[in-house]
């Protein structure tokens, strides 16, 4: 697919372009119109009512949160809309919850039956994910035209079970393949009105964005290994004499364990954020809508990783209170680096789509599976 080439412009070079905000080719960027102070109120009321209602309100909380974020995601001065009802989400959650309880009870009562049950689980999860994706798509609209998702369970099994398992078994070497599968599964099955999205991210481009992350993990593990080795050589003579295991040594072993744990978390977290941003750029930029309108993502991997990491630290330090600010900050950044270029006159394109109407009626019965956005 020749159209996918410009995607591979290294994202970090794109900083130059960001000042202009208007890249060549007439790309229309998304924007985010929400504010941290406004979202703070929604967020804290969601938490409070969820606690007071012993969790039941969480379904309605999700609706309010998504209506806020979708509604403030603006393209061509029109927002997206989220139409799910709290009741639908509650029912979906109860079903998943019941399954998890049954699963855990059976697992506790008959540990040896765990194998068979695990197999069933592997079949159930893709089905749930497919339903969840379909639900999310169908309750989303833009200009009063709904999205739809037509993926099947088999595809979800390959994209979300086989892919990650393969990636894990090969220690991440095949992770780009898994990413490609999942993006293709979502991107090729997404519909807007009666028109389809199509995506075919090039494997080579994903590997190119994967390399720095792999190098980061290797380097991180080497450093952690060196720290362990140095400490073991320092401690070994002390441990030879069992009586000499002092309190201080105990304490330093404890501190070392914590340090290594935190380092591992940091290394893998950073590398996966870096990779996630890169893959998103490649995959979105290789996506077209209705065969001609091109999508684009030009996140800077450094900036994206920085925002995610600093968001995490600030959320933790403020005991969660800055989370609304962090969420709005991330949404703004991601939206501003997502764009679409329409071939032709935008008004005509949308009135044609609106004329055709949605493939899905507004009054369909559906329930949410997993919480799984796209």
């Amino acid at each position, binding site marked *: 697919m020749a159209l996918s080439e410009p995607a591979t412009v290294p994202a970090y070079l794109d900083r130059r372009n960001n000042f202009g905000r208007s890249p060549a080719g007439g790309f229309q960027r998304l924007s985010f119109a929400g504010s941290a102070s406004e979202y703070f109120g929604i967020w804290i009321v969601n938490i409070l009512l969820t606690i007071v209602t012993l969790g039941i309100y969480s379904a309605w909380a999700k609706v309010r949160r998504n209506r806020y974020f979708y*509604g403030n995601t603006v393209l061509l001065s029109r927002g997206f809309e989220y139409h799910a009802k709290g009741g639908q989400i509650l029912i979906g959650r109860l079903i998943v919850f019941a399954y998890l309880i049954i699963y855990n009870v059976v697992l506790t*009562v*008959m540990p040896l039956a765990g194998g068979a049950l695990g197999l069933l689980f592997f079949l159930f999860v893709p089905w749930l994910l497919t339903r969840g994706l379909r639900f999310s798509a169908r309750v989303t609209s833009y200009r009063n035209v709904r999205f739809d998702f037509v993926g099947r369970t088999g595809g979800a099994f390959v994209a979300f079970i086989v892919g990650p398992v393969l990636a894990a078994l090969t220690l991440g070497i095949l992770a780009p393949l898994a990413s490609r599968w999942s993006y293709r599964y979502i991107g090729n099955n997404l519909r807007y009105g009666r028109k389809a999205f199509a995506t075919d991210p090039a494997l080579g481009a994903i590997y190119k964005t994967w390399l720095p992350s792999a190098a980061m993990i290797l380097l991180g593990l080497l450093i952690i290994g060196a720290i362990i080795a140095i400490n073991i050589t320092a401690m070994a003579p002390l441990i030879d004499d069992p009586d000499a295991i002092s309190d201080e040594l105990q304490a330093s072993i404890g501190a070392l364990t914590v340090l290594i744990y935190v380092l591992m978390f940091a290394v893998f977290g950073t590398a996966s954020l870096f990779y996630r941003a890169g893959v998103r750029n490649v995959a979105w930029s290789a996506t077209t809508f209705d065969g001609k309108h091109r999508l684009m993502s030009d996140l800077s991997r450094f900036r994206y990783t920085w925002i995610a990491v600093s968001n995490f630290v600030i*959320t933790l330090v403020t005991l969660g209170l800055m989370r609304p600010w962090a*969420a709005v900050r991330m949404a703004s950044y991601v939206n501003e680096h997502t764009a679409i270029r329409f071939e032709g006159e935008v008004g005509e394109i949308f009135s044609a789509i609106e004329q055709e109407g949605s493939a899905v009626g507004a009054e369909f019965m559906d329930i949410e599976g997993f919480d799984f956005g796209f």
Partner: protein
Amino acid sequence: MPSSLAEAGERLTVHGDAGAELSGGKLSAVEISPRVGAVPRRITFPDGSLFETGDNDAIDRFLTRKGRGREGIIHRMERFHPRLIAFVAAAILLGALIYRFALPALVEVAVAVTPPVVPRVMSVSTLEALDRTVLGDSELDEARRGRIIEGFRAIAALSAGGEGDYTLNFRKGGAIGPNAFALPDGTLILTDELVELAGNDTEMIVGVLAHEIGHVELKHSLRQIYRAAGVAALIMLIAGDIGSGAEDVLVQGGGLLSLSYSRSAEAAADRHSVELMLKAGRDPTAIARFFQLIETKLEDHSETSIFSTHPGTPERRKAILDLVAELRAQPR
């Protein structure tokens, strides 16, 4: 397209620029989306047509006039206002109260309503799984086994459930080495390795068994399962939107807290051992000797750390000796 919304008696109508009615419907049949922040309101008419407006306040005034002001209550709570500080405080307070009081209470209720068949089935299947994987047949001689069983019967008879509630199984530990553990239905498992470690001190083994009986009697495993489930549910509840990284941290924190729970369960079982041994007129310090043995033979001098399931061995031994001294000092 630009248009305006107007009220006409029972109906709500939309007019285009030229003044022609584009759509309309009875107020009760028109769906007005609830207000969320400054997101434009959607007014959906029965024929499926949609009117969108950013003038949220006008819609709110209209609804209030129609006596439907209550529909906006959630939004009014959410508005950025000093009141939100109280909400933050209430959320933290309620969360803490749930963790501190509601969760333990729920665990107690769950333990109380769990039919006895549940721990029985759990235990049978666990023992079966262990037998198939790590445990082997015991190679202890009859005489030694007899002495241990005799001591075990004596203390089991004095425990709350009576002798019938407990069965003692001898196994070869294999990979799990010197160990004794209890399954929730009162099935106790003692490994040959532990018996060998104890040498000729049968009393010490009886003390360890009394500790395991304590776990069963206090229903520690059931409690732990329910507690873990409760903490997970609590995190899921509150962590609706805190970001996946922060959620991981919460889960890890929950793990650390459950370890602290596990340590206090061990200490409770230690106390139970002392009390049961005293009641049986046996040596209550026997289990302390066992810890002494672990310290010297296995060179375990570890102190209590927040990362372990059991309290530090020297500390446990001291706590037991203190308790024995205290109980002995009490007039009976």
